[in-house]
């Protein structure tokens, strides 16, 4: 017998799915970095073996390999820093977040997943002073959910532009890009976004431009503004 699922349960399940996807993506990136470091290290071993057999050491090659190991190590450290920042962004269920920082973070975390589907993310300039008191988890989940809506109908080399602005008492975040898949294909994703936005005391709207390109606009309540 299938148990009836309420919105709270859907929200919890979707949060776990979101976290799983982010962790899978970051660990995949890290795994690739480790694989590259391992191969460059192996190349140094090969060169050493050749040198022991009497071949002259190609110091230019050794220098190039050393630089590659250093740059890949830095890349790995950057992935770990990104992972750590994301983990700490979830320390408090509700907190004040810098919008620019938070959008940059979720874009960096999602990049590999979207690019595999041919979607390239670009953050439009967002005023550094824009902040929002909200749930960091649900906020990032809502943005990611929008990416997924576009990924369902991704043509290769499509760019999504993410922008944000403040109105009187609301923050609007727009994710603009190509055409979305037809409604039936993204129905369940839309329902999930609807539940997330409801929990954020916000809403979303699907817009279609004159060139047939579409965007999703998230309207978010700033809990700071709501109290004043």
């Amino acid at each position: 017998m299938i148990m009836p699922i309420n919105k709270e349960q859907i929200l919890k399940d979707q949060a776990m799915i979101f976290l799983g996807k982010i962790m899978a993506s970051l660990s995949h990136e890290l795994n690739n970095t480790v694989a590259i470091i391992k191969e460059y290290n192996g190349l140094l071993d090969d060169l050493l073996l050749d040198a022991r057999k009497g071949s002259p050491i190609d110091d230019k090659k050794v220098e190039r390999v050393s630089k590659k190991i250093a740059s890949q190590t830095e890349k790995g450290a950057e992935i770990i820093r990104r992972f750590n920042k994301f983990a700490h962004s979830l320390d408090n269920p509700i907190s004040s977040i810098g919008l620019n920082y938070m959008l940059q973070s979720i874009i960096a975390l999602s990049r590999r997943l979207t690019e595999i589907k041919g979607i390239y993310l670009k953050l439009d300039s967002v005023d550094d002073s824009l902040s929002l008191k909200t749930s960091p988890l649900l906020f990032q989940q809502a943005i990611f959910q929008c990416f997924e809506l576009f990924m369902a109908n991704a043509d290769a080399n499509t760019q999504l532009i993410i922008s944000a602005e403040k109105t009187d008492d609301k923050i609007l975040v727009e994710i603009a890009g190509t055409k979305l898949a037809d409604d039936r294909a993204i129905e369940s994703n839309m329902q999930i976004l609807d539940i997330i936005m409801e929990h954020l005391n916000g809403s979303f709207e699907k817009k279609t431009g004159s060139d047939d390109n579409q965007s999703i606009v998230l309207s978010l309540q700033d809990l700071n503004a709501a109290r004043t």
Partner: protein
Amino acid sequence: MNPISVLLVDDEEDLSLVLAERLEMKGFIARGVVSSEEALDLIEKEEFDVMIIDIKMPGIGGLDLMQRVKQKRPETQIILFTGHGTDKEGETAIDDGAYDYLIKPIKIEDLIAKIEKAAGK
């Protein structure tokens, strides 16, 4: 005996290039490219005994590339790279026609053994 020719396809440029370099040092003829599109262009002009293909790549993915190579160059054997920590994805790839698979990070000895076996040498 002619050396075995190998084409590596991985969107991680450093990985495809360093593996090609290591294979060259061990007596193979090896090339590395960073996309399926580039690989498809290359196999129009050149023939390879074995192709090593990463499953997850932007644009044309590894499994799709494998099917296209099988049509264009049915004699080329394909070994897939998977970043998944389990065997499930690789076993599915074998069901789809891959000769074998390896989980990243790989051991060069395992890669060489699989290439030689795939090429029948």
